[in-house]
């Protein structure tokens, strides 16, 4: 006899970017679809179906994760940060500004995930080396830039000098 409930749907409560949401959700719903389709937070993107591309990267309880490999129900009670949290009242963060300054985005589809990975890095390692930057975004695929300008942008955002 199972002592604990097994549910195919439940109500989850999440704090996303400082706002609390309560929604009924199927157990099978991926967190990325919950964010995009149920909460209308379309900044995080879907780029693959095997957890390889990182376009869905968000920060959950302070940890950088790919939200396509997490169920929404697993995030019940969690504090989630997405790209929509980075700017303050339309004022771009230094990291966002650095991405623009260094042309670290072209189509912009991988950018939200990149920014979250870079945010997670800089919180833990405020002055990363070039190699540490590359490692930090190893899980984020970009097809437009070749990554080189992204390395520069993150380096610049950390206040370090960038070789141009």
């Amino acid at each position, binding site marked *: *006899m199972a002592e*604990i409930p097994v549910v*195919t749907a439940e109500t989850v409560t999440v704090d996303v970017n400082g706002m609390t949401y309560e929604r009924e959700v199927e157990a*099978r719903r991926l967190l990325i679809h919950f964010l995009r389709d149920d909460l209308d937070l379309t900044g995080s993107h879907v780029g693959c179906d095997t*957890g390889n591309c990182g376009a869905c990267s968000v920060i959950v309880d302070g940890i950088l994760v790919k939200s396509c*490999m*997490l169920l929404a*129900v*697993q995030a019940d009670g969690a504090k989630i940060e997405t790209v929509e949290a980075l700017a303050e009242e339309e004022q771009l963060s230094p990291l966002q500004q650095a991405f623009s300054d260094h042309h670290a985005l072209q189509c912009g589809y991988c950018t939200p995930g990149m920014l979250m990975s870079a945010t997670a890095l800089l919180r833990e390692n405020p002055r990363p080396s070039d190699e540490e930057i590359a490692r930090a975004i*190893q899980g984020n695929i970009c097809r437009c830039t070749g990554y080189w300008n992204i390395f520069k942008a993150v380096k610049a955002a950390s206040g370090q000098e960038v070789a141009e």
Partner: protein
Amino acid sequence: MLLSEVGYARPATLEQALGVLAHYPGARALAGGQTLINVMKARAAAPDVLVDLAGIPALKGIELGPDGTLELGPMITYTELIGSAEARARPILGQVCAQIADVQVRNKGTIGGNVCSSDPTNHLPPLLVALGAVFTVTGATGERAVPAEEFFLGVYMTAAGPGELLTKITVPAGRSDGFASVPIGVDGTCIVNAAATVNGGVRVALGCVAATPVVVEAPSTDPAAVRAAVREAALEPPSDVHASTDYRRHLAEVVAARAVEQAERGA
């Protein structure tokens, strides 16, 4: 990309988890989800219930015994293991975990998940076989200890059967270890990998060459001897888009020798 309907359980104790697993034959343990969720997206497997192990304290934790034995909870993430002071007692563990995929995967993926998915290209099965780890499997009837070499039964199949969970990984003391691989791109999926330890004897475990790790004992650390020992194992590796049977067989010799060389340097 989209999962079939599934039930979800959130046990707070090991007993509760085992209870659900026993009650639902199609239930599967959900560890980090970095493999299982993708398998479910592809609908290559469709468990009817997912038992989320994240809320069970007994499955986490790392303990270093006075004799240097490490007891690892299966729900430790790669990131946690890499950052663990205790785990540095056997440095190869953190070194290998740091080669797995990327930050996001390492933050959620667990060592238990790596081991229980028993994907032939995974890093930890050959590593733990080489190190002579012992897996504690717990079920309704109690606990049993399974040597790593006996734990892996096939692709996605392990000695932790229906209604059972891997609850501990015990790694003996030692330091002279090595790991070598040929990944597709840096930190990519392995085409071949090999783990070696030279703590008395030369023990190599090869990954990617069969459904489960293949153990090879070499008479010495001499690269030629290691390669000869691999050849004697008469491997029949799979052929796929990344490597033919012959190429994998050849690479297995090379990574075995390199893993032994690394192990020797650490000795």
